């Protein structure tokens, strides 16, 4: 019976996992490999283009005759210009500092909040959990104007502290939501036993829950760091001096001068501003993806 059914299935082209052997090779090339290759080329082309432009001399950049897809005589002139004639190094430092501090603060606050909501189950914790989720849905584009007013009134305008204080508004909701999911997966019995053995709630959190939630902490940390590194509208609104700017804002506002665009330094700035998050991401892809999909699924 199964042989007959197998033969029937054989005549079908079945596109599911485990049945791929039924699909003929030429068909697979057309339906899978070519579209996938086109997707990958389009998704990666802007990065290739950044890299090409960053190391290409000006006369090649501004020539329509030469093949633009390759560099004939690579140059480091644009990188040199970026590092020594602009404030790029201090933008990198600012971005790093703000991202690390904002991420650290947000993770600590989120761990406490997520533990309280998920495990202490205080009165009203369900509503607080919902409120945290709603807070995640508030976009920065409707908050930056009142925040700009507050930042000015608190005399924080043009300081890194303004960014460190405002970035957690989008980091904490996300991290708390993510960590709540991780804490949920840790058996309650572990905590109950520790309670009976006389451990305090803080000890339980630090000694039992956190070590078991390390993957969640890494996910939340990577996510928070990339979100802070990529932040644009707050940094654009709250910062005006060149030496306090972050990389995305610095490159966009300071490297574009007048009508003649210096594409070389601009693309070098974009490339080196993207590399840190790309490298960090490449080390923790699995954590990042599980954070992304976990947060959406929940």
């Amino acid at each position, binding site marked *: 019976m199964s042989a007959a059914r197998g033969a*029937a299935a054989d005549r079908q082209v079945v596109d599911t996992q485990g049945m791929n052997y039924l699909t003929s090779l030429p068909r697979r090339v057309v339906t899978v490999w070519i579209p996938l290759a086109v997707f990958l080329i389009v998704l990666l082309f802007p990065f290739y283009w950044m890299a090409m432009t960053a190391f290409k001399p000006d006369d090649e950049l501004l020539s329509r005759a030469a093949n*633009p897809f390759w560099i004939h005589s690579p140059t480091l002139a644009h990188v040199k210009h970026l590092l020594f004639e602009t404030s790029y190094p201090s933008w990198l430092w600012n971005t790093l500092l703000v991202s690390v501090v904002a991420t650290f603060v947000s993770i600590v606050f989120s761990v406490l909040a997520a533990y309280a909501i998920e495990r202490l189950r205080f009165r009203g914790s369900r509503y607080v959990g919902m409120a945290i989720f709603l807070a995640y849905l508030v976009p920065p584009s409707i908050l930056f104007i009142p925040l700009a007013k507050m930042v000015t009134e608190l005399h924080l305008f043009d300081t890194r502290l303004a960014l460190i204080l405002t970035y957690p508004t989008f980091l904490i909701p996300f991290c708390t939501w993510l960590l709540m999911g991780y804490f949920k997966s840790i058996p309650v019995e572990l905590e109950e*036993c520790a309670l009976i053995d006389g451990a305090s709630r803080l000890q339980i959190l630090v000694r039992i829950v956190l070590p078991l939630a390390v993957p969640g902490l890494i996910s939340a940390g990577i996510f928070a760091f990339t979100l802070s590194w990529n932040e644009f509208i707050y940094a654009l609104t709250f910062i005006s001096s060149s030496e306090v700017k972050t990389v995305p804002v610095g490159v966009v506002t300071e490297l574009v001068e007048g009508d003649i665009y210096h594409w070389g330094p601009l693309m070098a700035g974009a490339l080196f501003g993207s590399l840190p998050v790309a490298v960090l*991401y490449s080390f923790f*892809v699995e954590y*990042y993806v599980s954070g992304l999909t976990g947060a959406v*699924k929940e």
Partner: protein
Amino acid sequence: MGLAAFARIRVACDPAIVALAASTARLLDSRNALGLAFMLPAALLLLVFLTYPLGLGTWLGFTDAKIGRPGEWIGLENFEYLWGDSVTRLALFNTIFYTVVASAIKFVLGLWLALLLNKNLPFKSVVRAVVLLPFIVPTALSALAFWWIYDAQFSVISWALTRMGLIHQYIDFLGDPWNARFSTIAANVWRGVPFVAITLLAGLQTISPSYYEAASLDGATPWQQFRYVTLPLLTPIIAVVMTFSVLFTFTDFQLIYVLTRGGPLNATHLMATLSFQRAIPGGSLGEGAAIATAMVPFLLAAILVSYFGLQRRAWQQGGKDT
């Protein structure tokens, strides 16, 4: 080692269950206090820098506040002015057009890419990691790369099309209103497709292969399998992913700011970029805040449509029951 420790604690636990019941009563007393203490840092920060500004922003929308000058309450004047303002109306049209077109394309391409990635591929994890790159790098910086790719004089796309003999004149990607609209949408799609694809891929991986086996035994074609197995089972996660996608697209700022600053002739101004332009360089905090506040109802409507619209479909198709 973890398991052994777990077992040891379990053993220690059993004789103490009575004690547990007794201590639970005391514990519950402290739970509220402790819960409050643990919530305090996060709650305080969010109340001061999220909830308060949300209220302040709404209030500012009803005042004539300028930068450095506290405003007076002027009621609906800002909104009345903005309703008659052709640029604001255009920005509203642009935002809706941008959101609808970009989200639809992101959905179709994202689903397609997810289905491709769900096949048995060599280097599967590498391919998946590479696909997500556009989503993780700073949007402002990748938008700069698009700016260069769209350059009116040296665009590589124009160069390639000229060499292929398809066009004779370089395309003015960002200089013509409709070209600019579609160019910014393309850049937004480029950035958003990886997010849709990777999250939908996670959803696809939860669908049991046995459904497909059963369907193929019943003689379902690949298209029927997709239509009657994949799509219904995927609908709940599609609803969530597209809600987020619509939310991000509707409130987009960076991409437009970098590529066009709203030009040419305000053809690509979105609500967010217009609100920034009026409030920060323009100095009219009240007017900018009014535009931002006006986004909220549209945003809620967009979320409701994409979330509940898709959820209801799932329910009608029995996707919820399984």
